[in-house]
């Protein structure tokens, strides 16, 4: 059946007041259309909730291995000792109550032609639309000496979980006066301001518990998100504790020796660490590759106006896995991409007009408990590309009083509570 006639049929059936879930009716004569979502993090869980909200009759199935999802946002505050581990965890009861079917399994493979996905449980799920929001995977082949085994000695802690807890234990075990070395990749990577917030949060912990310690940031680039604001805040709260070395000053690390906790830079300098935090280059989560939606960059190209993948019709991709510049890889952006995709898919299945694309981002970063900064942006789609809306966005003012910084710290905490309630809350 051609797309057009199918769409027309859906529209006329909908107008006739039939059940909303029409493609399955068209296909199988009964039941409802099914949308399967892979990944219960910021993009996927948002998509599940909002699909149900827009079209309650849809069968929405969320596939996520973890019974509780721990957020990367605020995991730096956990390293600082400002948040408990449990406070980062979110269960799926709220989504179940909203009518989402949640299956705790890993998606192993996607058959785009037969429109199904195979799970680690052996189960195979058919879908009318598939949404992939698997986040990032580490590129274990990209940095000499840094593979999955090495990450057990020199954690990346760039997925919230055992890696984050390992890094915290290493910080606790470190002697005062030690050196915490962080290796930072070139763009694009998950959470552009994340490494620099982490530096501040590690400094917060050291200042109180190991004040003679140092933090060395070895960076593969010369510029980073909110650079001026971070450097100003580091200085104000931690003096000289944090040293940042950019590409121009030989900051790019080319080899890691996790056994001896040493790293080597492009020009052959060796740095020895007491605690070594290596954030390696990244790519889209493996399932995106299995689905055939990634390109040579390792990321997923998507249509700007709705986040359907460019490679396969009917498969949508969200969040960190996508090529969505100039938007950053942030939780906030993944959430607004998911809201657009959910509204688009619902409209499509209901035979309604699609929504106009609009994406919002704000990344708050904490430098100290009462010192927050932010970067914001608003984006739309034009001629198949994602574009920042002219005049929008930007960072917190460079000169601001302590009350302003404290207010933004409080706003950051309020943001975290709001977005988590929006996604995993009771509804």
């Amino acid at each position, binding site marked *: 059946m051609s797309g057009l006639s199918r769409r027309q049929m859906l529209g006329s059936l909908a107008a006739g007041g039939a059940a909303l879930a029409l493609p399955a009716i068209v296909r199988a004569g009964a039941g409802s259309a099914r949308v399967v979502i892979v990944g219960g993090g910021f993009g996927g869980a948002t998509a599940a909730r909002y699909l149900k909200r827009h079209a309650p009759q849809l069968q929405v199935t969320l596939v996520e291995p973890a019974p509780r999802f721990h957020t990367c946002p605020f995991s730096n505050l956990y390293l600082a000792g400002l948040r408990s581990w449990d406070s980062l965890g979110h269960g799926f009861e709220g989504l179940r109550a909203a009518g989402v079917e949640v299956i705790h399994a890993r998606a192993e493979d996607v058959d785009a032609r037969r429109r199904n996905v195979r799970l680690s449980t052996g189960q195979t799920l058919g879908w009318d639309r598939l949404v992939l929001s698997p986040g990032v995977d580490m590129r274990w082949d990209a940095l000499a000496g840094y593979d999955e085994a090495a990450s057990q000695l020199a954690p990346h802690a760039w997925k919230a979980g055992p890696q984050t807890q390992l890094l915290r234990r290493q910080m606790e075990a470190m002697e005062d006066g030690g050196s915490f070395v962080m290796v930072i990749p070139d763009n694009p990577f998950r959470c552009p301001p994340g490494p620099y917030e982490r530096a501040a949060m590690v400094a917060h912990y050291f200042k109180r518990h190991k004040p003679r310690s140092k933090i060395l940031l070895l960076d593969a680039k010369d510029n980073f998100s909110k650079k001026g604001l971070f450097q100003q805040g580091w200085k104000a709260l931690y003096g000289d504790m944090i040293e940042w070395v950019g590409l121009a000053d030989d900051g790019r690390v080319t080899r890691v020796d996790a056994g001896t906790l040493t790293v080597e830079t492009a020009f052959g300098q060796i740095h020895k660490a007491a605690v070594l935090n290596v954030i390696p280059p990244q790519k889209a989560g493996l399932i995106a590759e299995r689905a055939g939606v990634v390109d040579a960059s390792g990321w997923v190209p998507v249509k700007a106006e709705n986040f359907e993948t460019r490679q396969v019709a009917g498969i949508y991709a969200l969040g960190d896995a996508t090529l969505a510049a100039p938007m950053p890889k942030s939780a906030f952006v993944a959430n607004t991409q998911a809201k657009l995709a959910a509204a688009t898919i619902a409209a499509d299945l209901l035979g309604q007009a699609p929504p106009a694309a609009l994406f919002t981002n704000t990344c708050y970063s904490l430098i100290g408990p009462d010192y927050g900064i932010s970067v*914001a942006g608003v984006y739309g789609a034009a001629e198949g590309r994602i574009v920042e809306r002219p005049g*929008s966005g930007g960072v917190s003012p460079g000169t601001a009083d302590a009350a302003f910084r404290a207010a933004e710290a409080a706003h950051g*905490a309020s*943001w975290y509570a*709001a977005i988590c309630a929006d996604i995993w809350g009771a509804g």
Partner: protein
Amino acid sequence: MQPSSRVAPALLSLASLGLALAGPAAAAELPATTAAVLAGGCVNCHGPDGRAQGAIPPIGGLDEGYLRARLLAFRDGRDAPGSVMTRLMKGHDTDQIEALAKWFARGGTR
């Protein structure tokens, strides 16, 4: 101007028919799904349906005129210097602000 505000004549007459039934409203009202997508960015900070979860103020159920005035003031740089709201509203046009004011005045649902 947003493409959505250039409504084809046939659609326009349909829309105004609907609006006449629904009561007075601007001619360029954005479709509900588009308004939902717009509002999706706000609730990340202001909480589900604009019910605040902390220091960021609640916006669900505020007076429509008040909401419109504040959003325009943020956008035009007449309110809260340096605020993230100014940086965000500068990316919204008048039709979008109109839709947001209506959306949250209704309690953050359609």
